[in-house]
């Protein structure tokens, strides 16, 4: 019997974790500090207050083997301001991207592609148009790639992932 090997073979997995935390100064840095101090990854992090409560919800996307993910959840639970940590198994994930494209690009194409990713033109000026899209993170990644390759965007801003159990 070996108590250790089962950890070493395990593969890297992507995990969406939501953390319910008391709104107080320092709470975000406590959580981010935990990740950096223990050498864990944060792929994306979003945070906003939960309406009508003294808590905020953070959605963290992270990667690691099973042992690392287990530790992340346990260590997060240990922080004093953390109320609840949820390792999501079956979730709806959404991410928003804003992309600014110079006006001299073939704009009709932009609109068509954007619509395929639930996107719209949000604003038009003399110099540029801004489109937004909200979709699953891997589709947003696709969309961002396509726009990047074809339209020389001036600026791309992504929101990070928000998630909810189905």
């Amino acid at each position, binding site marked *: 019997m070996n108590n250790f090997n089962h950890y070493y073979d395990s593969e890297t997995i992507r995990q969406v974790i939501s953390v319910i935390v008391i709104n107080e100064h320092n709470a975000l840095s406590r959580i981010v*500090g935990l990740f950096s101090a223990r050498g864990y990854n944060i792929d994306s992090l979003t945070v906003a207050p939960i309406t009508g409560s003294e808590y905020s919800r953070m959605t963290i996307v992270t990667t690691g083997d099973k042992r690392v993910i287990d530790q992340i959840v346990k260590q997060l639970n240990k922080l*004093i301001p953390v109320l609840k940590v949820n390792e999501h198994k079956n979730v709806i994930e959404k991410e928003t991207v804003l992309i600014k494209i110079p006006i001299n690009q073939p704009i009709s194409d932009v609109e068509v592609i954007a619509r395929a990713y639930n996107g719209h033109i949000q604003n038009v000026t003399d110099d540029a148009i801004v489109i937004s899209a909200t979709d699953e993170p891997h589709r947003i990644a696709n969309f961002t790639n396509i726009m990047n390759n074809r339209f020389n965007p001036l600026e791309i801003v992504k929101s990070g992932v928000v998630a909810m159990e189905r």
Partner: protein
Amino acid sequence: MKMTGAKMVIESLNEERVDTVFGYPGGAIMNVYDEIYKQNHFEHILNRHEQASIHAAEGYARSTGKVGVAIVTSGPGFTNAVTGLATAYMDSIPLVVISGQVPTTIIGTDGFQEIDAVGISRPCTKHNYLVNKIEDLPRIMKEAFHIARTGRPGPVHIDIPKDITAQVGNFEYPKEVNLPTYKPTVNYNKRQLKKAMIAISKSKKPLLYVGGGAILANCGHEIREFAKKTNIPVVETLMARGIMGHDNPLLMGMLGMHGEFAANMAAYETDLLISLGARFDDRVTGRLDEFASKAKVIHVDVDPASIEKLVKANYPIVGDLKVTVEGMLESLKDIEFNDFSNWVALLKEYREKEPLRYIDSNTVIKPQWPIERVGEILGNKAIISTDVGQHQMWTAQFYPFSFPRQFITSGGLGTMGFGLPAAIGVAKGNPDKVSINFSGDGSILMNIQELMTCVQSNLPVINIILNNNYLGMVRQWQTMFYENRLSETDLSIQPDFKMLVESFGGLGYRVTTKEEFDAALKDAVEKKRPAMIEVIVERNEEVLPMVPNGHALNEMTLIGDIDE
């Protein structure tokens, strides 16, 4: 009742029945110190360095089981305290450390003696607070003590801006703590405990692996009872020394890098490792994938994050250790166990074949000898602190510890400079015991200024310096693993320790023979004054046995391997 923030700090400490505070004043904490001058609830011990204040509070907390308290100022006062906080955090020692901060109006402007104290203390405390409003102060004080002493204990830091300590507010100390996000598990899962007990009943070679958590949970008595009733042998970690008592027939000694042959072989051969408040530190396990590799694991810990951090646990149990071991004792009446006497006899055979030993000399004092000698003379009348290095391991190996909290040492962080200030806390908290600090000639110089604290506060700490004119443990590694290139470990030039302690106003002795040592120790104990006994010891003695880094516990270098 209306009062200033500074007065609130004092009143809160009084509510928590704090009798001793260690600290060092400065600009940002002066309002609090002004109230300390006026109060008569507790005694304040003035250290000479903030790091030492924290270590002294630790020595007090580790030896008495109470929460240790220290007060420091902002900026450098606080940054000096960080090593102490990290030491306490690694060993889960309950402390409340209060620091001054620049006024809220100055925070963020790089003011004089300003530092982001809560930012710095975050990774080395269990929790920390910056007090923004005077209304929060009583609640924060109450929460800090609660958090420090419950669950897995640890240090809590409170940073208080100077204007908050000057403001007047209403003081009402909360009766209860209301922290919806902090509810440490006390009671174990009964079904899980039952499964674990069945596993014990099926095993042939079970082993109790006891860690520092057993000391923190005050369950030495319960563990001794459980071992006695089941006849299961026990190994202790460095932090658990004293749990079983040195003469307990079921104790197979300390395990780990400098553990005993029998203890390490027990961990190698066991088929069921019962971990009680231990955390599988790399200094204990050696090569992790070979540690207890024939065994299933029962892992009891109050901290869920400790379970499966390093080792897969077949039977994880989260709960207060005292409560859990009581539960284990309770369930004994329903369960039949195997007869483990062959297993115990095998380990005893190992112990007799390869006992912990050193080869004494007639010409020079071997460093292990004074430790054994103090054990013979003072035994359980003394509480023993150490610094970090060879002397620390020899003390763990050769002192006859007979009760929990008798051995005060920096395990997790391995902080040089810990011993003398910790012994100050021990002396303050245990006036009926002799406070002995074993130190090396390297370690002692890291907080030597604390001799002044001993003298000023009349604390009869006896420092025994095992002087080999080396940074001994590093020298040992250089000898064994770096082809004897003694890079910066030769400390041939050292102060005259006798004159040094005398210049502080303490008693100084320099001894080179066993007779001189006995006389010096007798004199120091009788005179009840701060003392330092410098013992000139064999320069090149190694700490053995040793498991070289990256090796498995059964691959020990034994004393015979070196001498032959």
